[in-house]
Structure formats: C-alpha cells, structure tokens
C-alpha cells in the first residue's frame, strides 16, 4: 500500500485537529525481529519522485545506512534509496540536492553529498524507498549536531 503524502497529511489532520498526535519517533532498528521501519512524520516533505541516480551530491558529508527485508533481516541489494536535504547549494526543493543511490550486495548504501545545514530549525535529511517491491517508507533523520558530517538512516522494508 502506497500512502501518498497528501493523503497521509489529510489523515493526520483529521485525527489530530484537536488533540496533539503523539510523535512518531521510531527507532531505526525496532526491538522485535526486523519489524518494518515506519514512515517518519514530515518524511515526505519536498519529495521529488524519481530523483536521478547520482555518483554524489557534492562533497564533505556522508549519508549512509543499510536496507534489510522485514521478518528475515536479509540484506536487500540493488534497491533504490532517494535522498534529499538542505545544503549550501540550496533548500530541499533545489534539484541538485536530490539524488538516488542503489544498495550494494550487502544491502548498504552510501552517498557523499554537500554538508546538510539546518532547515526549518533542524538539521535533518530526507530519504525515501518508493518502488514497487516493498511498501513505501519516508525517513526524516535529525542530526545530533549541525556540525555532524555523517548521518545514518536504515530501512527495514515490508513487502508491498
């Protein structure tokens, strides 16, 4: 099931118009055996579907992580992860801040990019798995410090 960002927002709005919805803070690796990673709140903001495959999005900063299959925990090779963030090149809507990478045989991915800078008050990145084989997941990891030069984001994907 693909949850479109607008639908998701409308859904949250409906549920949370009066009460404050609890924060969807999900540890990257859930305690139970390879439970699927949940989409993070705001994860799909400024998403541009089908970001081109790139060698890098600049230099000086590393986005990395592992992509596993839910339940079994087996690494998922050749899986497309889309990445975007605000950098000195521009904001999250700047096309040169959007790119895709494929995971290696061991399920890991890495993308060198320009330094992520605080945007809307928090230094954070955006990542998406948005292809046919598994359920769509949008992540929005927050950096501990704006001077960090790496950011890890892991996916555990459930079959679509």
């Amino acid at each position: 099931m693909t949850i479109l960002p607008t639908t998701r927002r409308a859904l949250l709005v409906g549920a949370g118009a009066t009460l404050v919805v609890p924060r969807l803070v999900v540890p990257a690796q859930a305690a139970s055996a390879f439970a699927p990673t949940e989409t993070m709140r705001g994860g799909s903001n400024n998403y541009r579907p089908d970001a081109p495959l790139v060698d890098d999005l600049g230099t000086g900063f590393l986005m990395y992580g592992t992509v596993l299959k839910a339940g079994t925990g087996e690494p998922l090779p050749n899986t497309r992860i889309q990445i975007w963030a605000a950098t000195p090149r521009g904001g999250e809507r700047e096309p040169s801040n959007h790119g895709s990478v494929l995971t290696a045989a061991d399920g890991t991915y890495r993308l060198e990019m320009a330094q992520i800078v605080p945007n809307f008050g928090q230094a954070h990145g955006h990542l998406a798995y948005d292809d046919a084989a598994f359920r769509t997941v949008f992540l929005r990891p927050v950096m501990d410090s704006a001077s960090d030069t790496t950011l890890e984001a892991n996916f555990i994907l459930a079959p679509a």
Partner: protein
Amino acid sequence: MRRAVAVGAWAMLAGAILAPLAIAAGSPWLAGRDPVYIIAGFAGIAALALLLAQPLLAAGYLPGLHPVQARRWHRMVGGGILLGVTVHVGGLYLTSPPDTLDALLLVSPTPFSVYGVIGLWSVVLTALLVAARSRMGLRPAIWRIVHNALAVVVVISSVVHALMIEGTMGAWSKALLCALVLAATAIAILHLRIVGPLLKKR
C-alpha cells in the same frame, strides 16, 4: 545628565534590537537560502526583538516619551509585530508549503513549531482585541487583564520557539534577547498590575 541617561537608555534598546539582527546577518547558513526564506527568518527575529519594546513602552520606562506618545508607539510596534509574524509564516509557506502546513496543523515533527503556532494565534487574538476594543464593551480593567494574559502567552511561546530553533541567530545574542524580553515583560506586568495597584490602595 538626564539627557545622557535618556540617550543611553534608547541606545541600549536600539542595540538590544539591532545586534541580534546584525549577528544573524553573518550566519553561514544563509548561503544556501532563497531570499524569501531569508526574509521570513529575519521577520521572525525582528518580531521577537520588537517584543522587547512593548512592555517598556506600555509601562512608560523609556525616557523622554510623553505617555500619549508611548501609547501610540506601543500600538505601532504591535502592528510591526503582527506584520513580522505574518511575513515570517507567509515566507516560510512560500519556502516549503508542506513543512509550514504541518506546523500550522500541529502535525510537524519539530517540537518548537507548536510554540510558534501558539504565538501566532496569540498575536492574531491580540490584534483582534485591540481592533475591537471600543466595540466589545469590556471594562477597561478586564480588557487590560486579557491583553496582558495574551501578551504573556505571546512572549513565553515566542521565547521557547526561538530558543529551540537551530537557525541563523547567534546562540548568545538569542539567549540574551530572550532573557531581556522575559525580564521586561515580567517587570512591567508586576509593576502595572500588581505592585502599582497595591501601592495606590494604601
């Protein structure tokens, strides 16, 4: 001598308002930002800085101002704060509609945005309260209590909002400005609404 004190007081107020703006103008994070985002950010800083002038004008602490003048300035600065907040939120919307809508609808992942939204609506309510002052028929004493209660909400929510944000403001100038805004608001309200009336009664 009196004149020197007055000039000093006004210079300190001008410095307290302008220094945080000047320091933010040197932020390295401005490099990748669109002009609209930069304007939105500075409108927010300006609105926060103007909060410092409001209690000082309301309580008549600024030397050389006739009370009628001070009242007029208080109202104009209030309009300035409303304008600043409007440009802040409008500019953020143009910069990133989904992030701004999430904040306005209280579904944002950032914990500070809820304080910004509380501040926004408190400023809007204050403007309505001022605009409808004569029509509402509230007793002046009650009107003042409502106005002051809203002002306290505006100040506290704005300060929390600003302190939690990692943005272009310098950490020290932001903390100092926030401390001054809190202190000026607390002193003016205690003086005008609690200590003053008690002394008058005796």
